């Protein structure tokens, strides 16, 4: 089974991109039988949601130095060799470190896909910037393809 996880902080503008997307998905008939989880900023909820699933799609704000727009990452946590230069801080765990710690503890999916948009404004706000909200449809289309759902439109 596939789980779609929205990550981020809803009150910090574009950081809440993932939550805005899954809130939209929850209202769409074509996703009514899909497991959708709001993990907020909590990595434990994210791990719990992925536990035992075949595939996870995580939607989040992603800044990997791309010019703008949507970025996609895809990896298999069981096969990836994670680097050992781990920086440990309880309040700032790197996603990679969380996965490394969860290995052998949780039954993680063979495939994790991370999809998201470069944030423009991360500041106290409930709203997305125009550039981010403009990419929501594109991300939903991407998720449809990942799930093999044909667009109803």
């Amino acid at each position: 089974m596939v789980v779609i996880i929205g990550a981020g902080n809803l009150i910090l503008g574009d950081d809440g991109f993932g939550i805005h997307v899954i809130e939209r998905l929850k209202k769409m008939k074509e996703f009514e039988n899909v497991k959708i989880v709001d993990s907020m900023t909590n990595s434990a909820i994210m791990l719990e949601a992925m536990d035992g699933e075949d595939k996870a799609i995580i939607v989040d704000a992603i800044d990997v130095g791309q010019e703008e727009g949507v970025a996609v990452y895809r990896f298999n946590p069981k096969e990836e060799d994670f680097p050992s230069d781990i920086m440990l801080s309880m309040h700032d765990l790197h996603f990679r470190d969380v996965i490394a710690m969860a290995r052998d503890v949780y039954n993680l999916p063979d495939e994790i896909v991370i999809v998201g948009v470069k944030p423009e404004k991360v500041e106290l706000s409930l709203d997305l910037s125009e550039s981010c909200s403009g990419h929501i449809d594109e991300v939903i289309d991407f998720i449809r393809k990942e799930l093999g759902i044909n667009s109803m439109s």
Partner: protein
Amino acid sequence: MEITIDPVTRLEGHHGVKINVEDGVVTDAKALALMFRGFERILVGRDIRDAPIITQRICGVCHNDHRLASLFAIENAAGMADEWNVGMPPAATAFRNLVTTLQYVYDHPVWVYVLVGPDFSDSPHKTGLTRLNPIVGKGVKEAVWAQKELHKAMAIIGGKVPHMMTPAPGGMTLEIDEKIITQLVGIVADVKKWAVGVGIGQPAATNAEYVLDEVLKQMEEIKAGKRDAFEPKEGMGNALFDMVAMIAVAHDMGLNEQGVWEDSKMLAYGFLPDPESGELYFPSGFFNGSELENMDYRKISEDVTYSWYKDETQTGYVGTDLPPEPYYGKSGAYTWGKAPRYNGLPAEVGPLPRLVAMYLKKSKELGDPLGLRKTFCGSATASTALSRMIARIQEELIMIDYLESLLLQLKDYAGKKTAIEYPENISGEGVGLREAPRGALGHWVVAENGKIKRYQAVVPTTWNVSPKDSKGQHGPLESALIGTPVSDPANPWEVVRTIHSFDLCLACTVHIFTKEGRKYNLTLDACSI
């Protein structure tokens, strides 16, 4: 040479230490708390029933402890219970004891595997403690599993974690039933098996001597080059094995001679009242260096001579202090931390003071299980970096047994009333005393017509990292640091380990200043600290 280590945080941030080193020994120390908290100010004017919800947010780790301390204080103010919450319905007390105990069984392993374990793990020092290597160590992974299970247990009772919802003014919003007990017993049985290698019905320390022998044997083999890592044998209890191995390594590194507070004072508020008799399982007391005095909370004051607050906010007794009025830049001050004092004296708080109180008041066996502090540190009441570490681990053993007996006891309270009505518009003063994993925790409230007029939370770390007071007396951490050897100023491990023995946590960047004003900026990852 002056050395500043800031931050020293692996858990809750913003604490630092400034030390002076001469001839390889710390000659002066200043404990720095560089973040203003201000919860007390947020609370003034609000409905008193909001206090437990808001103060719970003081911490994301010991959230339950603040919620309970605050409830104890407001229920005391309402005349429903004494300062230890004795007087509430027995079923509520039993339930609250369960919340408390789960928190301990969860929390001490966090300290072992995340907060202090990396200091002694194989990755920086080739100690053979590969199981404690940050994040990827086998022991660390097992602890993550156990914590997931214990969080589940807390969520079954509290609705969610962190910041559970069910302890509420007047009792608990949930009644105990068979289903809850069965679920909890299942989780506790699994966790106990991992932690100490035995099932329900057997004392946690059953394996302890065997484990100690095995650890010492493996240690000799590692030193002789016959093996390179500690490995528990089947059924030993992996956590117990890791904890004992960590103690053996720490002793080997000389921690019994580091962080020594010669003239130590210790304070325990006591907690876990028996639901029927009200007797505290962990007794209260003030250890004055030679004997245990009865504890009277009216002797607790907070000194702000060296803290960034206006001097007039202190009155003598903490319960009548005004909300803290910040005065950053006050001459001579160096911290946002206040200096709590008992009868005018500084006092260490935490597992060691709790067990010392238990040792002197209840029983030697219970207060120093397996005689570990006596054996490794010369005396059960000695205050050293190692004895603080041992006490934390001993307490984990005690708590696992206590948790189990409590679960069995809960059956008697199934279906019984866990709450009584909390009156509206109360006026009065209340005190809530208890013990959080890191030490004595007290909340003080003054209410008028249901609104908060004054609020003070004196938290464990405030006791331990308190600055000097008007009499020039150093706080416990400062006293423990003074006299600590520093073999290498560029890597002051002895200082860091002393700090960690108080469970204050630590982080990644160490700034070092020499007297010539040269600044080293070392970025250390968790593997090297």
